[in-house]
């Protein structure tokens, strides 16, 4: 019997996420930074700064929250499963 291959720890998971931010729409509210501080930051003028456009799976929930609560709808997620 051959064991099914599993992904090694630390490796990007099999369900990648790609984050797109619309800088023109961004209103600088900072709610993404509060929801997912490891993925989003703000420039000095408040506009979003994406720290990781393809974050690991343990951050996906926080990133989905950030996208959902963005008051300007400036965060789009591309997810495949």
């Amino acid at each position, binding site marked *: 019997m051959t064991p099914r291959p599993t992904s090694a720890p630390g490796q990007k998971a099999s369900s990648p996420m790609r984050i797109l931010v619309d800088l023109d729409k961004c*209103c600088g*509210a900072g*709610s993404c*930074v*509060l929801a997912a501080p490891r993925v989003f*930051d703000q420039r000095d003028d408040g506009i979003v700064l994406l720290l990781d456009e393809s974050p690991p799976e343990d951050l996906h929930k926080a990133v989905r*929250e950030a996208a959902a609560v963005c*008051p300007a*709808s400036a965060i789009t997620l591309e997810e495949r499963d």
Partner: protein
Amino acid sequence: MSTDTDDQVLSYPLPAPSALEPPPEWVQLRERCPVAHVRLASGDSAMMLTRYADIRQVLSDPRFTRDLSADGAARTTANEGGSAFENAEAAALVSGERHQSWRRLVMKWFTAKQILAMQQRMETMVNSLVDDMVAKGAPADLLASVGFPFPVWVICDLLGIPDIDRDKLAYWSNTMLSMTQYTQQEIDAAQLEFRQYMTAHITSKRDNPGPDLISELLTVVDEGQRLTEQELIFTAQGILVAGHETTSNMIGKMMAMLLADRARWEQLLQDPALVRTAVEEALRYDANSGFGLPRFLTHDAEIAGHSVPRGTTLVCSLSAANRDERAFERADAMDLTRTPNPHLAFGAGPHSCVGQTLARTELQTVLTLLLRRLPTLALAVPPDALPRRTGLLVGGLEQVLVRW
């Protein structure tokens, strides 16, 4: 004008049964009449929106302007001078092309990083206010003791205003936000005194700059971006008016909602990590957020399948949208763990509240410290006897009596 409520015109804002409960009409309006004809305190007509999706659409669309000084726009108050919404000079700064560059200048002071750097000072402020309240003994008015002074202290800090002038600022902001509580004469006097005070403050910051927003804005030299003295005063006024009453009232309402049902307070005592989501849920669940956001239509538009002609004034009831079952599961239940919680308490779109991270942090700080310091905190009156504040653009409670 297209409306399905020709049989009845509601008076806006709609009366609510008690301070923490929503007007019963909301459910029906969202269901059957999402664009409803209403009459404002001025006697002028407007269309009221109650659904989450419609309000989000309107607030995100630049054709719906914030300039209520425009010809034909409804007057929101019965006062001659109109309310904070109807100042043409201020409107020029915060709408249209000038808005974005202005917003980015001011935004610098409201980023998550800036606000988190203020957190320590905020904790010191709340602790000292709670110390005073505890020293005077129970029962105490949580609103007068903590909720009302705290946000004005924070704004004074932000604007570089000395501690001894905090009370003056609190009075002016209270008066400038009035719809019916003060006479036009009192409102005009408050405006004038505030402007004179700020003019002198700006002069003193020009000579002795400090680590504050006014000093920083004075250093902007770029021709296109630089603010005139008048614009600086409007900026300070806007921050005070938008950041004081709103947050003060929300502190009172949040605490009242959380203490009205002991299970909520117990849940937070057991798991203080819920403070963040609990604050968001309090913002969503607040049925008494006040006037909502007005918009003026410069073009014909379609909302919820209704054609709405240009020249219409819309009022977006943010609280009604936050209870919309189409947007939130079990919208009528307060769930302190709700995630995500894309409520509209701070508006949405390009004009979404610039100070929302500040407000969130202030609310979280108050809640965290009250849980830690006064775990036995309880309302000293039954929830349905909580007295409401009336006559202001922002809804709130007159008093939140507590014991511990």
